[in-house]
């Protein structure tokens, strides 16, 4: 394996371990797809996610959770990338999900733009500011059409303490 392939495998393994370690991410059924430094979250449709059986539409709480998860994973991933590049977290830490320090949500504002239809959803987060303590993240979510968002959110997060360099 070349050094480049090994780094890619380590990155994919770390992302997978992060996502698998959080029960609520598993419960909603959110997965992440990585292309270079860009993450896309997918919420796979499941009948238990319905909040309005008449329309039908997904529960607003599912949308809020999906957007919050997308923001948190983007931030945790952003913090972990640099460390992975200098080879800091050990393979066994990554397998245990222990290489991650998940930020804490301070607040989240969700803007519901259209009903979320009973089908798969996608979301991407953009970190607008990430300081030593606080981060501000914007998330967009859509279904069939990337330009027709069904929801967007902005949140503030408390960053985990940085591990000492070494």
């Amino acid at each position: 394996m070349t050094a480049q392939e090994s780094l890619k495998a380590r990155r994919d393994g770390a992302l997978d371990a992060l996502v698998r370690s959080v029960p609520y991410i598993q419960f909603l059924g959110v997965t992440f797809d990585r292309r270079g430094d860009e993450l896309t979250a997918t919420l796979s449709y499941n009948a238990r996610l319905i909040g309005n059986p008449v329309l039908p539409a997904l529960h607003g709480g599912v949308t809020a959770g999906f957007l919050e998860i997308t923001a948190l994973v983007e931030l945790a991933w952003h913090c972990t990338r640099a460390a992975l590049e200098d080879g800091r977290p050990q393979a066994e830490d990554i397998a245990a999900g222990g290489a991650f320090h998940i930020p804490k949500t301070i607040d989240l504002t969700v803007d519901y733009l259209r009903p979320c239809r009973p089908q798969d959803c996608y979301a991407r987060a953009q970190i607008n500011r990430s300081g030593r303590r606080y981060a501000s993240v914007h998330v967009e979510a859509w279904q069939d059409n990337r330009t027709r968002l069904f929801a967007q959110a902005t949140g503030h997060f408390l960053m985990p303490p940085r591990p000492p360099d070494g």
Partner: protein
Amino acid sequence: MSDDDRARREKLARRFTEALPFSKALDMRIDSFGVAVAGMSMPYSGFIVGDPGTGIVHGGAVSALLDTCGGLAVFLHPEGTAPTATLDLRIDYMRPAKPGHRIHAWAEVYNTTRTVAFVRGIAYDTARDQPVAMLTGAFTFAKKAL
């Protein structure tokens, strides 16, 4: 609102909320009804955990409870005529919920226009004066014509 009207609305609200698959999946329960006010709760369980290291509940599960409770408060508004949908939801997280404890929510409609209901609410575990999260939201509303 007459007693009959209130009883009818409460029955509808209970039937409606308890039929929501996602609320059922989180085992949410209605604890109290009032005029444009509602109380709900859900049990702690392993699958709503957001931090596996500490067992702390994911913020998304708390916001799902608050969103449902806010929607129920709008449904219980005596001047409302149609089902509601969330337009805007802001959740402020005050502190982590204590692992193992039931999470309670309370929400009220504090103002309405012809088309919008403004809602506020809180989520707490052991004591209502120590909130876990606060909700501020705007919901769709269709006010009864006078």
